[in-house]
């Protein structure tokens, strides 16, 4: 078991009113499994991903990663997990536009403190698999949406994480590019990576091992 989420809750106060964004949610994820989550905007999908990465703290419940409980109270511990064990892909890419592709891809390794030649060669290898090796010295801001998302995927993989969280990675992309991105994610699955993908695209939902719909803060398997 890579990830085990047990009975987590998360609520926010909006204009003095308590809103339950995550309501007693549980989820297990096996190694090499792709789970797709869909749901209406604002239903709590991104909050769930943020809770898994430790950026947001749950009100209660527990999350275990590789059978070990996550310490959400420790920023240092969660930052370490986020850096080494989890690769994140966002719909807005979240790249450093003024930096080159290679600098962007190497950034998690820099934060980890391991950015030697071996890691650099691995970065070139994954940029090659993503089909953008020739752009490694190009500024990220100059790339197209599809190219940026490939850079984001390469960056998510550079520290060899076991879990990939993709938050609508295809939202701003055309169908053809979206399918290419999903092919890349399938390739990662074959390499043994576990993936949680938040998406609205039908073909992605169909190809996932399990599909859930998020409603009223809970997951319902489709």
């Amino acid at each position, binding site marked *: 078991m890579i990830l085990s989420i047990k009975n987590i809750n998360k609520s926010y106060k909006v204009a003095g009113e308590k809103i339950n964004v995550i309501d007693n949610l549980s989820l297990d994820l096996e190694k090499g499994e792709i789970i797709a989550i869909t749901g209406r905007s604002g239903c709590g999908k991104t909050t769930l991903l943020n809770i898994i990465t430790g*950026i947001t703290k749950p009100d209660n419940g527990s999350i275990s990663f590789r059978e070990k409980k996550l310490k959400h109270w420790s920023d240092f511990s969660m930052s370490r997990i*986020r850096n*080494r064990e989890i690769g994140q892909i966002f719909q807005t890419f*979240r790249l450093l536009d003024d930096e080159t592709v290679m600098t962007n891809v190497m950034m998690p390794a820099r934060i980890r403190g391991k950015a030697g030649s071996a890691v650099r060669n691995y970065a070139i290898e994954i940029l090659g698999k993503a089909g953008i090796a020739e752009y490694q010295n190009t500024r990220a801001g100059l790339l197209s949406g599809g190219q940026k998302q490939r850079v984001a995927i390469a960056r998510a993989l550079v520290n060899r994480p076991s879990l990939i969280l993709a*938050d609508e990675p295809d939202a701003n992309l055309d169908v053809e590019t979206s399918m290419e991105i999903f092919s890349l994610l399938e390739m990662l699955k074959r390499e043994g990576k576990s993936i949680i993908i938040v998406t609205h695209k039908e073909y992605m939902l169909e190809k996932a091992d399990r599909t859930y719909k998020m409603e009223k803060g809970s997951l319902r398997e489709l």
Partner: protein
Amino acid sequence: MLNKLYLIKKELSGGIFISFIVFCVILLSVSAIITFNILSQNFNSYIANNFASSIPPNEIKVKPGESKSLFLFSTGTGKELSGAAINRISKIPGVKKVDPVMAVTVPTSATIYFFSFQYKTDLIVAGASYKFVESDLKNNEMKKAWLKGSYNFTRPGDTGIPVLVPKTLIDSYNNGLAAANALPEIVPEKMSGLRFKLSFGQSSVNTYEGAYDWSSIVAGYTDKINIMGLIIPLKAAEEINKKFGKTGRYMFALVNVNDHKNFEPVKNQIKNMGFVVETGESLSSEILKLKNTVNAFITMMITLVSVLAIVTTALCSVTAVWGRIDYYRIMRTLGASKFFIALTILIKFALMGFAASWCGIFIIEQLKVHILQSVTIPGVTLTLDISAATIAKVLTAGTLIPVAASLPAIIRMFSAKLDNN
């Protein structure tokens, strides 16, 4: 480690324009603060040299207790400044040294020869220790004579007594006696070596049995003892008093304290012993008031500049951090801890502050020569030296102020949370 340095370098190179503004603010503030400090130093040393030289800081002038009598004359009911009293004062905790000036308590007169003119006058003679007047003694020969208590003239067996002439006496002569009687004025620097005759035990009022004359030679002049009389070696004064059966009685003593902290306690203890004390404050309270006012103004200006620098840097740092909030959010999603992000920001502002302070000091050092060449104020010797202690203080403050000023920006950054998508 290299990777961490790389990330700090990335932080340093981010938001160049705002960083440049912070750099300029610190640079200008440091330059202004150093200038105010130099102004303050020059002003204080001007005051010290020109107004407060009679009683320097950390020095207390102790005089015998004042006579209290219902009549015009009294027979000395005030507390006498005796040898025993001097001993007691020197044992007060915090006292560094005591320089007593002993009165020669026998009638004394001097006969001075100017060309064919002979002038005889009664005068006061006091004895001072070698250590106290050492710097006023014109040359080594005079210094040796002072230590010995007598001066050997070239003719064998012909001895005399070295004397120091108080500057007050010379000024009084030049401005009073000389002017009134059409006599030539005395140039203090040229007095050394001048011979005259001193008569001990004899004055126009009284003559003691055993009165005698003694040749004298001027060893220099002094502004440490402002009496209308002459200063002779302490040893000689003691011998003269002894010869006429008089006990040692001191006119006054200058008491040096270890540091300013001991000043008030020592002053009060001496006062409680029944002696009159004079300090720098009592001599020139108006000047001290002016000095305090100017220093308070300068301190206020330094505080104002520092506050402006802190406020400007704080605003700049908030703007700079806010302008890079997306960068920090990305760094955080990639696994940088809050602590590490805060640390890179603090290091950035510390380095900027240090560099700007160093540049400020460097600029002032470079301009120093030109300022000294171009600015001349009559009667004032400008010193533009920045002491090592000032440099250390400026560098420390210049580094810490931007660090402290960046804290609101860091707090603001964390309060805004870094989990927005």
